[in-house]
């Protein structure tokens, strides 16, 4: 337990209003989607309640964060920061730890519309940032987790695929610079800012400290606190006079779709054709979105209720869908639009595909265009269930994604047959390309029943099997290879990388107090 002295020191920093140790409030920080699996694995009844922090603090400046971190060092108290705090990796993992909730740090510090970057604090959300950027004709890369999540969290700390990845890339690669309160309480500002007062690059002088802070997956809050992030921006393809115009009443909102936008669902008979077409589309950097799910997924994306989705699925979509990917063409001009549409159609024809929208099997409404750009489509998965998680996640090429989809199908089907996970015939996947098609990843969203121990454990077993397949058959590193145990499990087939990670942890977190549960601890805990 934290002691009174520690608590009052923190209270001096943030003020009485912004610190708490009221159990009822603390418990709201102990509850996370995904915890039910861990609890089932411990042998308990599945529960979304996990470890309760001993206190929660709400700092509002970098200096406050720094002081908090220093006090934690002094008292050797573990801390875990989060931005909006969604997911099992956001909470504290061990007794006696405090949570740093960054929601009072919510400023858009700077927009540089010419040099295409924005500087944000942790609690600016994707939708807020997007809304503010439209006025400049710009957009940022928003992670698929949703419009209400934090672009800073994603860019500095957590993976980063999104629905617009073919056009806006991957969070980790869009980070230009960051203000970082390291675990020892030092404030570091990466890149050009220190030298010029501007955030246009995070690299140098010399090598880039971006190499320390996040990697592909992000440090998941295990390496200090990020208080500002400079993020790369992209042109928003709409006419200058276009505004975000949404009308109607819930749930049937209508949106003014920018003039040169079009969704196409390219459906092919076989993986081979799919793969060739996906590559060819990718070679041209012509789409805002390029993604695959299952037919159930497709129905969920472009309907408004569970009932509607089910009607669409059984109204012919299920029978018709083979190997498809959805593209969103979002062009700036008529010329660009015409060329892109023609190119997509040409490629579709070449590989004997059809457009499921044109064929009338699925009909996205204007609001679905809005949800695409606002990064809301992931949330549609929750229409089927409040419990889903993803397995796999390896990110390299389209070819690997296609192979992995096929390798996964029988494995997933096995668990479907056992009745422990949602039945999508093993076809449910999510894949997207990045950066004009240069990379791709595949993950396998999987529905389970969070109230059923059997289902939670079944899902966990399925995930373990997927991890094992990825490991043994070299399908890239899955998303959730974090924490000592899992890192070590992967170490031998991945050149023993955890040893370097541990050295970084030791060098930057000498007291080991930045919660390492979803990162790594300096000492190899899993071997102890």
């Amino acid at each position: 337990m934290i002691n009174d002295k520690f608590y009052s020191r923190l209270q001096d920093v943030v003020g009485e209003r912004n610190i708490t140790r009221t159990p009822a409030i603390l418990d709201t920080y102990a509850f996370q989607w995904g915890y039910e699996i861990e609890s089932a694995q411990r042998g308990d009844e599945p529960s979304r309640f996990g470890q309760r922090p001993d206190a929660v603090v709400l700092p509002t400046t970098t200096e406050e964060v720094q002081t908090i971190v220093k006090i934690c060092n002094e008292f050797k108290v573990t801390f875990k920061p989060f931005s909006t705090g969604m997911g099992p990796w956001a909470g504290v993992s061990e007794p006696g730890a405090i949570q740093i909730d960054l929601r009072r740090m919510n400023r858009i510090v700077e927009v540089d519309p010419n040099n295409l970057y924005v500087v944000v604090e942790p609690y600016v959300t994707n939708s807020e940032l997007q809304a503010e950027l439209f006025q400049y004709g710009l957009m940022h890369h928003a992670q698929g987790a949703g419009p209400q999540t934090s672009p800073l969290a994603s860019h500095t700390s957590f993976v980063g695929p999104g629905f617009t990845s073919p056009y806006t890339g991957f969070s980790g690669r869009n980070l230009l610079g960051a203000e970082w309160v390291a675990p020892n309480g030092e404030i570091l500002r990466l890149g050009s800012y220190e030298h010029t007062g501007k955030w246009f690059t995070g690299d140098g002088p010399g090598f880039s400290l971006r190499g320390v802070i996040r990697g592909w997956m992000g440090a998941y809050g295990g390496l200090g606190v990020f208080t500002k992030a400079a993020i790369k921006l992209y042109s928003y393809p709409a006419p200058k006079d276009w505004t975000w115009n949404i009308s109607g009443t819930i749930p049937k909102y209508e949106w003014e779709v920018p003039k040169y936008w079009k969704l196409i669902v390219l459906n092919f008979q076989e993986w081979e054709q799919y793969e060739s077409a996906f590559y060819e589309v990718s070679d041209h950097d012509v789409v805002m979105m390029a993604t695959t799910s299952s037919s159930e997924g497709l129905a969920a994306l472009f309907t408004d209720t569970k009932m509607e989705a089910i009607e669409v699925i059984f109204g012919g979509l299920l029978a018709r869908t083979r190997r498809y990917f959805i593209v969103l063409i979002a062009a700036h001009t008529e010329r660009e639009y015409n060329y892109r549409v023609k190119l997509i159609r040409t490629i579709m024809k070449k590989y004997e595909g059809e457009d499921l929208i044109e064929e009338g099997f699925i009909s996205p409404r204007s609001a679905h265009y809005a949800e695409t750009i606002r990064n809301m489509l992931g949330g549609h998965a929750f229409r089927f269930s409040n419990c889903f998680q993803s397995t796999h996640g390896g990110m390299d090429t389209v070819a690997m994604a296609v192979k992995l989809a096929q390798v996964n199908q029988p494995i997933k089907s096995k668990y479907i047959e056992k009745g422990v996970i949602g039945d999508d015939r093993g076809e449910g996947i999510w894949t997207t390309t990045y950066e004009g098609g240069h990379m791709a990843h595949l993950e396998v969203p999987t529905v389970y029943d969070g109230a059923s121990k059997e289902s939670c454990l079944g899902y966990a077993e399925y995930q373990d099997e997927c991890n094992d397949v990825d490991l043994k058959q070299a399908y890239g590193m899955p998303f959730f290879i974090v924490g000592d145990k899992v890192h070590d499990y992967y170490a031998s087939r991945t050149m023993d990388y955890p040893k370097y990670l541990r050295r970084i942890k030791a060098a930057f977190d000498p007291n080991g107090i930045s919660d390492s549960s979803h990162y790594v601890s300096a000492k190899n805990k899993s071997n102890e």
Partner: protein
Amino acid sequence: MTLENYEEMMDGCVRCSKCKFLPQLQIKSKRFSHICPSIEYFNFHAYSGGGRMIMANALQKGRIEFTPEMLDVLYSCTNCGGCEVSCKWVYDLEPNEVIHELRVKAVESGAGPLPKHKKYIELVERYQNPYGEPSEKRPAWIEDDIKLDEDSNTIFFVGCTAAYRREEIALSTAKVLNAGNENFRILGTDEFCCGSPVYRVGDREKAIEIMKSNVELFKSKGVERIITSCSGCFNMLRTEYPRYVETSFEVVHISQLLETMLSDGRLKLTNEVPMKVTYHDPCHLGRMSEPYEPYEGEKVEILSQVYMWDPPKPERLGAGGIYDPPRNVLKQIPGIELIEMERICEYSYCCGAGGGVKAGFPDFALWTATERVQEAEETGAKGIVSVCPFCSTNIRDSLDYRESEMEYFDLTELVLMSLEGGE
């Protein structure tokens, strides 16, 4: 329902924070992206719709108990229902229902409500109104020229706030009714609080008693139709009463009636009222007034791990509130230009007064109203119009506090100004 009935639902919260914001497609600026005043003011997750639901869940699972600090969190919520609209768009969850149920449990277990709430509940019991005013003064707002029709089976249910605190609204309502030749009477000293202040803080038992006795009263007086200019009363009478007691009367909000009277030609708006105005949707007239459709059914597994209600459960998403009538009336007043705020209709921002907050946490109530007033000011309008005496009080408090140049109007007041020979 009991909290226990909600446990499965509570377990399904994904702690995504969507309930802190407008439905995400509706966000047009960072400044006005929020829907929950409570989380904005207090900041700990527990102060959001989802947070309170976790708290309820923790209580249900025996992890926590009612403590004064916990009750403070529970009651610093205006019960505005915003969280629920944002959540339900995506999920099958009803955070606001859970919050209410938790309040009920707090009262049932003897912990709630807060002392200030207890006090006004006592006043309601003693004086028929939460202000502790004598019944005789209830009809004091009436002026001589108001025509009442004692034979009418329609009553104007004035409500405690209009009767004792916002008399101008009671008066202008009566006047426009007269102008439109709408026959009505009032219950005068017999009128009894609708029960809203008691119900909202979780004293469901007493609230149901009040509902019952009011229903009896209406019956005994031959009331078939109730007109109200208070959104809180409207919400109780139209939406909450039928959940607990049998009702046999029609409930009409003044804004609906005005719309009808205008389309019937019973009212003619001729005077120019040259003014830019913006309209504030009271939560209780808007999203919260959507009726509950009685439902019985069960969850069935339609695909593996995917469940649906059989028969399909009616979704109370917030679309069924009263949004258009007040706007349609405003648009027909010559000279009035209606400019909308960013947060309107089912995703409107609360004035900050409801759910026992005005009594329990006046600073928070004022802060919330000020957020709303700032939003209204940004439209460039001169007038902020609404249709609820309770919103009126809180918004006026903020206008005074801010020394704002904006002025508050009840819709009936503007209509009155525009009437031929009106004021």
